[in-house]
């Protein structure tokens, strides 16, 4: 009973925040509301016993997306919003609201009437998990059963980085992106950036490492490592790397390249693309995941940083 009340309260809170995010007049409060929304959403995921998703949602869905959007809203403060689009007229607004309500209603009706017992692949996933040597079925789906989707999605990240970079001005090509900086050096943020990362990096590596058997994995661990790098750069302890740096490019592409390479080696070693050799599956998977974690840790800050805006130094 108490649990159910709490669930309903959580849902109500999430819906309120979402409503505020969409309906608020000013942009900045809407963004702040979205960040809170993302964090509460990960609690719903915990309640659904999807801890892996909760971790990802908190780190990427709420956290990094929040940083990105707050940064965008902050950069636009003071400059006029390009009013190229028209506000919809009032009747149109009502019509859209009605149609959206209808669509949501249809979705809700359908969700309630899904078949019982629900079809599931959980038993099959658990049956086959022994051959992968893993203990966490979500990791097994990501890296073994549906490895192809994951590999493709890693390539999506690289292409997104290329897309973001391509929005630089020609003069800035080869230069460095911008990360919001602390105002004063040697201030609180510097101290924070000196104290937190050692611990944060340990936690990131640990979350990646236990991901084989427990909730966690390359995405979640990589996201934490990425956050540490962002903090260090924000405090000004290291420079944002110029996009022409070879090591940066290798770090960004290493994940998909190693994944692809291991996949092709699978033809020879395990009789199929993206198949893992019998008995050696787990070491190979860990090997691939190391590079994936590295690439995620490099990619996410680059996506947050945006297009290079500083001309390369001669």
């Amino acid at each position, binding site marked *: 009973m108490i649990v159910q009340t709490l669930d309903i309260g959580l849902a109500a809170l999430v819906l309120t925040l979402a409503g505020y995010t969409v309906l608020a007049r000013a942009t900045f409060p809407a963004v702040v509301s979205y960040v809170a929304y993302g964090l509460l959403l990960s609690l719903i995921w915990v309640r659904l016993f999807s801890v892996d998703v909760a971790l990802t949602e908190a780190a990427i869905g709420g956290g990094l997306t929040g940083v990105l959007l707050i940064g965008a809203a902050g950069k636009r403060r003071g400059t006029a919003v390009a009013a190229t689009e028209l506000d919809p007229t009032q009747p149109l607004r009502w019509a859209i609201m009605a149609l959206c309500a209808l669509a949501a209603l249809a979705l809700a009706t359908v969700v309630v009437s899904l078949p019982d017992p629900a079809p599931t692949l959980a038993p099959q996933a658990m049956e086959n998990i022994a051959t992968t040597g893993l203990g966490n079925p979500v990791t097994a789906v990501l890296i073994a059963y549906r490895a192809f989707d994951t590999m493709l999605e890693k390539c999506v990240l690289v292409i997104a980085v290329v897309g973001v970079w391509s929005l630089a001005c020609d003069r800035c090509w080869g230069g460095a992106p911008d990360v919001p900086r602390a105002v004063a050096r040697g*201030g*609180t*943020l510097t*101290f*924070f950036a000196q104290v*937190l990362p050692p611990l944060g990096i340990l936690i990131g590596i640990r979350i990646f490492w236990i991901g084989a058997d427990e909730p966690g994995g390359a995405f979640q661990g990589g996201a934490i490592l990425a956050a540490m790098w962002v903090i260090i750069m924000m405090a000004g302890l290291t420079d944002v790397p110029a996009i022409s740096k070879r090591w940066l490019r290798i770090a960004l592409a290493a994940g998909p390249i190693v994944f692809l390479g291991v996949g092709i080696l699978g033809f020879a070693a395990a009789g199929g693309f993206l198949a893992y050799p019998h008995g050696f599956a787990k070491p190979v998977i860990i090997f691939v995941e190391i590079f994936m974690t590295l690439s995620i840790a490099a990619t996410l800050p680059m996506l947050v940083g945006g297009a290079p805006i500083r001309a390369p130094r001669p």
Partner: protein
Amino acid sequence: MSFAPNLFSIVAIGAGLIFFLAGTCGLLRFPDTLSRLHALTKADNLGLGLVVIGLLPLADNVLAALKLVVVWVLVQLSGATVGQLIAQSTRRNGRTE
């Protein structure tokens, strides 16, 4: 599980929740940024601290208890930093609303 740690937990977590409630009220009702920050850091600090203390006896083993403490320390650290940054930014921009 004996009754004593349970009672201890209930009292500690309850006290923590009161701090959270007070902090939230302050965040919503206080007039300017600095006072709001003041209210918020109390919730972070004491509220979460009391909740963690309340949870400690319920932890399965020492490692889990240690993790709870680490969570508290990390929140302290980041809360303090963010509070400082917001305050600095407020002072710099001369905005108090």
